[in-house]
């Protein structure tokens, strides 16, 4: 039977941990610990240990690396949600094995994105309580961090649970240390034909929900910046579509990296086959081209006949202090497009080049997120304050590196307790 054959090959070393796995885990936990130590200094001393300072007379940026990192991380999460939705709704069967990877990736990145916001606020404990107790929906902050993050995280959890029940029920029939866990995860699931049909319907509905939440959440992240008329360099109607497209692109790029790593680690060339990478390459190409278009439109609009204030920000980005970062990130977006386009046009796909394009796209996206946040604060002033500056400190770097390591730990541990690859044949036979 196709389903059981598939399931026989899904354990992927679950429940077993090699020495190498342990060494990597300990190393990552050490990095997480270093981040926690840095954050503890911030809690004790205050954010004076960061490079953040007030706008105005102090000439600084009150938001910086934490927020840029948050945008990048949640962008991957929102992008992963949109990719799950697209693959389900449009029947992209080659991407179905990725669905659980996407779900776990989304959960991990949304989690660390939320934490980077917590790291940024002055009163983290009060924030957790007051955002619920005194929630004000008119604030874009509320939209992003309450509706966006919480709804996205909750819906991904629900999706992961519902999607994984069938495999959990099959895994629960097999002896092993994790049997109890699989019994719990599949509680109430019978794997009958009627239940499979219901599960497929549920997955379709969830795909629609995830797609909507993904787009909505990425847009509200953009509104945090785009609706601020008093902040030159931020205000603009293109922020929201730009955020959605960049979220999609970073999500796809991160998926390529994870899929390539899993292909190498698990030696599973069937699940992570050439067609999957071809699809991912082409989706990445499409999204990158769309984002380059957005960048061009932004550039033309802001440099043609904008206000003197907005012009100062554009000038700082194109020719001034931030020019190296802007041109580097723009060049990297173009390089991503070129690498993926050449393969699409030639019809020959090389995994190394696809992975390279994914790495480049993510570096470009991080730089772009930084450019969205910082120049509008240090240069985008309306009164004659002096130009500001912002340089992240070791505390900020360690906190975000620690959070990134935490996401990888989350992924590594998940892989050991649940099949990370969705059962493709299982999906196809769902409606039997």
């Amino acid at each position, binding site marked *: 039977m196709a389903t059981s054959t598939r399931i026989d090959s899904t354990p992927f070393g679950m429940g077993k941990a090699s020495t190498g796995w342990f060494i990597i885990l300990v190393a990552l936990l050490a990095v997480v610990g270093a981040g926690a130590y840095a954050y503890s200094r911030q809690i004790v*001393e*205050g*954010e*004076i240990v*960061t490079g*953040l*300072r*007030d*706008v*105005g*007379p*102090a*000439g600084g940026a*009150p*938001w910086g690396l934490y927020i840029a990192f948050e945008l990048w991380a949640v962008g991957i999460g929102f992008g992963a949600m949109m990719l799950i939705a697209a693959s389900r709704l449009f029947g992209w069967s080659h991407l179905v094995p990725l669905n659980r990877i996407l779900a776990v990736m989304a959960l991990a990145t949304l989690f660390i994105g939320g934490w980077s916001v917590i790291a*940024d*606020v*002055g*009163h983290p404990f*009060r*924030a957790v309580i*007051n*955002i619920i*107790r*005194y*929630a*004000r929906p*008119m*604030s*874009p*902050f*509320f939209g992003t*961090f*309450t509706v966006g993050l919480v709804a996205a995280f909750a819906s991904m959890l629900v999706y992961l649970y519902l999607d994984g029940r069938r495999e959990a029920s099959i895994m629960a029939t097999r002896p092993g240390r994790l049997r109890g866990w699989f019994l719990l995860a599949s509680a109430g699931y019978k794997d009958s034909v009627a239940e499979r049909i219901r599960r497929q319907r549920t997955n379709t509905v969830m795909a629609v929900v995830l797609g909507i939440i993904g787009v909505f959440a990425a847009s509200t992240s953009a509104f*945090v910046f785009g609706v*601020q*008329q*008093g*902040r030159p360099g931020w205000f603009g109607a293109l922020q929201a579509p730009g955020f959605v497209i960049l979220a999609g692109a970073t999500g796809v790029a991160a998926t390529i990296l994870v899929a390539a790593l899993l292909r190498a680690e698990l030696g599973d060339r069937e699940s992570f086959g050439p067609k999957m990478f071809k699809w991912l390459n082409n989706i990445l190409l499409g999204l990158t081209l769309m984002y380059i278009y957005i960048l061009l439109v932004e550039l033309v609009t802001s440099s043609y006949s904008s206000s*003197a204030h907005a012009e100062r920000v554009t000038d700082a980005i194109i020719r001034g202090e931030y020019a190296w970062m802007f041109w580097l990130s723009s060049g990297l977006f173009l390089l991503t497009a070129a690498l993926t386009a050449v393969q699409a046009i030639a019809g020959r796909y090389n995994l190394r080049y696809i992975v390279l394009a994914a790495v480049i796209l993510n570096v470009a996206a991080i730089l772009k997120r930084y450019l969205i946040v910082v120049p509008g*604060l240090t240069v985008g*002033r*309306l*009164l*004659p*304050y*002096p130009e500001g500056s912002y340089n992240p400190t070791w505390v900020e770097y360690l906190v975000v590196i620690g959070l990134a390591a935490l996401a990888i730990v989350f992924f590594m541990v998940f892989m050991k307790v649940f099949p990370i690859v969705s059962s493709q044949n299982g999906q196809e036979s769902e409606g039997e």
Partner: protein
Amino acid sequence: MPKYGMVIDLEKCVGCRACMVACKVENNTPEANYWMYVFRTEEREYPDTKVTFLPRPCQHCDNAPCVKVCPVGARFKREDGLVATDWERCIGCRYCEVACPYGVNSFNYADPKKNQYLDWSDADIESATGGAVPGYANPDLDRKSQLEGRKIAGSNHTKGVVEKCTFCVQKVEKGQNPACAETCPVFAITFGDLDDPESAASRKLKASKTFQLLDDWNTKPRVHYVGTPPGEGAREIERPKTRQTGGV
């Protein structure tokens, strides 16, 4: 209910920054936090240089961007026109600060007690004080406001929260003027009920040609200026020096 506002006469202002000092004394603000700030700017090049002064308190906007973006309602608009910050509710996200086009907000990056003007831990000072740190604080700042019973004066200069000019709400609720208006040696700052046509501020507003800072941005500030605003090319010529901003 009065609707307070302020009229600042730039033609009278001499840029002495006494208002900034008065604000600091009244509100015990930490170092580098300027609830009232006076721009000393110049335009054009020597020998045609034009020097201008622009006092900048919080504009207490009727359509305040900071109020709109606050995710927890810590920043709010009072019925009497003041824009206030509830220190006990603020989570320190600094969204108000990035949304404000006037740059009036200050975040307490460090414990303000360690951030006052004199470094009380300095060895020389400690030898003179015997390690004692003066306990001076304006007791009025610690009281809850009469209007809504929330702590909105400068009482809790607390690490991790945002603060800004309150129009000296603790004085206004007693029928007094803000410290900056009381201190100005040339009577450039007039404070009062702009809904009362007989108030000094209303009379001044009626008698003069005024402008509002960044009025194109539709923030509807409650601070009006008499005179001409600094031009596009205005550049700041002298900033207050602190240990945080360097120079001391």
